[in-house]
């Protein structure tokens, strides 16, 4: 069956009152941007408070479905059969044909017809249509039975000005909020499992993403960096173009190693990463930082450690996985397609810079005291790291 249109359903946008238009526009823009890379010609329109994607040419159904499934803000979408108005009898016939093609298995199904007559000069009113079309289908197909409360198939018929829409199937979308409606966030991205998935989750709430990766050659390899680039590209499929800032962290890492207590290495490194991330975030209009941290997962993710790394920045730090188990995070990573890349062996922190017994309950005063030894070098080190910031623009479609 050829569907000439898709009805786009959005849940949360509908309750945004005065801002509704803003959210809808963002969603329309996003759908247009995504479909630009799909074969075929499409028009995305807003009509009677709904968004439709109309196909103006042949297209690949699977490809369009796949594309729509990546767009945040779409709660679900329905492939719509559009027919011309050739009278009520023809409508009944076309509806029967629709049911036959949509449910070719002829397995027992319950259904309910829900007609809507937007164009009032159509000779049959909604109530009558529900009844008549229902009876007609029951008559034609022995595998159908009626259930008005909880039907397997909710068959919708809409009589509109230009044509008639018939649809029943609803395909689940990403949900969430359209990209950009929540501004932009700075993701602290590593080659691990958690941070890419955390970026995806926050982007789902409407954030564009920038990302920062801390590279430490020769202790981390080009391949580790490439892995992060690959991960950013996978997330960009959902989150749109990502600007990835690659910061050379080697000198800072070595300075910490030489000047600070070994068991505090990781925590102090994290503090410097947060400081640098916040700096780049502010320069790039990001309103928040995003990390993949999960409470208690490793030594630097205890409440004390998080509080210790948190205090060096003023922007809010979003940690969508804070209450997630590792397996739950993995299942999200698998679903969005980052997991396979994340588990490649290239490490992004050399074990030389990981203490065998790191502190798990750092005290802020003690850490600050340790950092004192770096104070006279600190400014120059951070300045140099920021100046050598390598920025890559990463898009799924490149």
């Amino acid at each position, binding site marked *: 069956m050829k569907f000439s249109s898709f009805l786009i359903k959005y849940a949360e946008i509908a309750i945004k009152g005065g801002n509704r238009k803003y959210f809808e526009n963002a969603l329309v823009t996003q759908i247009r941007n995504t479909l630009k890379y799909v074969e075929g010609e499409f028009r995305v329109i807003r009509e009677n408070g709904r968004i439709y994607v109309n196909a103006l040419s042949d297209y690949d159904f699977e490809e369009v479905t796949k594309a729509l499934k990546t767009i945040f803000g779409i709660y679900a979408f329905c492939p719509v059969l559009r027919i011309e108005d050739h009278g009520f009898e023809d409508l009944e016939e076309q509806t029967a044909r629709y049911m036959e093609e949509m449910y070719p298995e002829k397995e027992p199904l319950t259904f309910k017809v829900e007609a809507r007559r937007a164009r009032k000069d159509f000779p049959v009113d909604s109530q009558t249509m529900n009844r008549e079309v229902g009876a007609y289908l029951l008559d034609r197909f022995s595998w159908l039975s009626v259930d008005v409360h909880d039907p397997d198939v909710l068959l919708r018929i809409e009589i509109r000005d230009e044509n008639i829409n018939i649809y029943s199937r609803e395909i689940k979308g990403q949900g969430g909020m359209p990209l950009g409606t929540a501004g932009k966030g700075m993701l602290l991205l590593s080659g691990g499992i958690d941070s890419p998935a955390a970026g995806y989750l926050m982007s789902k709430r409407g954030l564009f993403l920038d990302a920062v990766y801390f590279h430490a050659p*020769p202790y981390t390899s080009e391949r580790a960096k490439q892995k992060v680039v690959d991960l950013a590209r996978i997330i960009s499929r959902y989150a749109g173009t990502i600007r990835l800032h690659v910061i050379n962290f080697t000198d800072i890492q070595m300075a910490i190693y030489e000047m600070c207590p*070994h068991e505090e290495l990781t925590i102090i490194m994290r503090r410097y990463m947060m400081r640098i991330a916040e700096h780049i975030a502010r320069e790039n209009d990001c309103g928040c930082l995003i990390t993949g941290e999960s409470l208690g997962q490793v030594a630097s993710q205890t409440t004390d450690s998080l509080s210790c790394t948190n205090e060096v920045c003023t922007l809010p730090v979003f940690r969508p996985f804070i209450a997630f188990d590792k397996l739950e995070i993995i299942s999200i990573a698998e679903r969005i397609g980052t997991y396979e890349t994340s588990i490649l062996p290239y490490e992004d922190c050399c074990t030389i810079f990981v203490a065998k017994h790191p502190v798990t309950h750092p005290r802020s005063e003690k850490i600050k005291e340790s950092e004192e030894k770096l104070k006279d070098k600190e400014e120059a080190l951070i300045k140099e790291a920021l100046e050598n910031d390598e920025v890559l623009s990463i898009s799924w479609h490149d």
Partner: protein
Amino acid sequence: MMEIYLDNAATTKTDPEVMDLVTRVMTEDYGNAASLHKKGVDAERYAVKARQQIADTLKCAPKNIYFTSGGTESNNWAILSTAEAYVRSGKHLITTLVEHASVKNVMEALKNRGFEITYLPVDENGCVSVQSVREAVRPDTILVSVMAVNNEIGAREPVEEIGEMLHSKFPQVLFHVDAIQSYGKYRIYPERSHIDYMSVSAHKIHGPKGAGFLYVSDRVKLKPYIYGGGQQKGMRSGTENIPGEAGLGLASEIAYRHLDENNERLYQLKSRLREGLMALEGAFLNGQADGSSAPHILSCSFEGMRSEVLLHALEDRGIYVSSGSACSSSHPSQINTLSGMGLSKARQEGTIRFSFSKYTKEEEIEETLVALRDLLPLLRRFKRK
């Protein structure tokens, strides 16, 4: 920045003469060697010539040469074909603990199909003894597979002696030699040394990637493992890779044209690097010196270093080397040459392989030594606590 490529055991830079030939085949003589028309005949000529060029280096007949996609395919084919064709004679194969993965993992796959594999140990220089091979042979042994030159440390295995011993004591046992690191460095004549299969790869001798050959002796019952249009006497189907074959043929000829001068130069480079390394603190050479080990591979362990870190630090200066394998376990397929030689885990983790080619210059060796002298003390300040 100057580029110093010391990873020639991984792959080599293509010889410009070879590149010209490959380009000509691709642009002008692009026909399918199986076509009846002139284009096909022209293309076929390159294959005939390449087979002859290779046969000349081995002193064998061209009909004993089968083109493949490279070393891995050649190794796979020799072992799998033997297992299939000789299964009635027995299900026992012998190899060493230091073979390349393209031998070891085939052996492991056969093990899962009910074959028995004996892995022979090596001495502290990475060499297997003829004696141990002799003792391992059983009435149901069908194949012995030993590499000619080890890819990790350059150890030269006694393949000629093993061939001789098998021929005189166990003539029914077939003998496969992985010559991927030795071809173009040593003259090994399979007939004279009673070798039944010999694997070679083009890209290790300045030829193109995706090309190689398997020498197969007359007495071998060979089985195809790729079926199709019946190319290469039905033994290895698939449209012939004429550019690759032509490139491989010419690269083989060139490699043997100046073999002695080249080897002499390589040994000089190697001994210069050895000397320089021995003057460094905490550097330990792996494998034997000179003569008995390959001219183009030198393995060295650096105390208190992680080889990957040193590798990337050298890379930062435009120097490309390879790290020794890091992991080791008790599983035969996981044992690498270094652990097989009895090197401690720490030593293994700090191992770097330098490998040269005819393009390596003496000043590049000096430059590398300068870089190491700079980097080692710097990097050693940072170690895991």
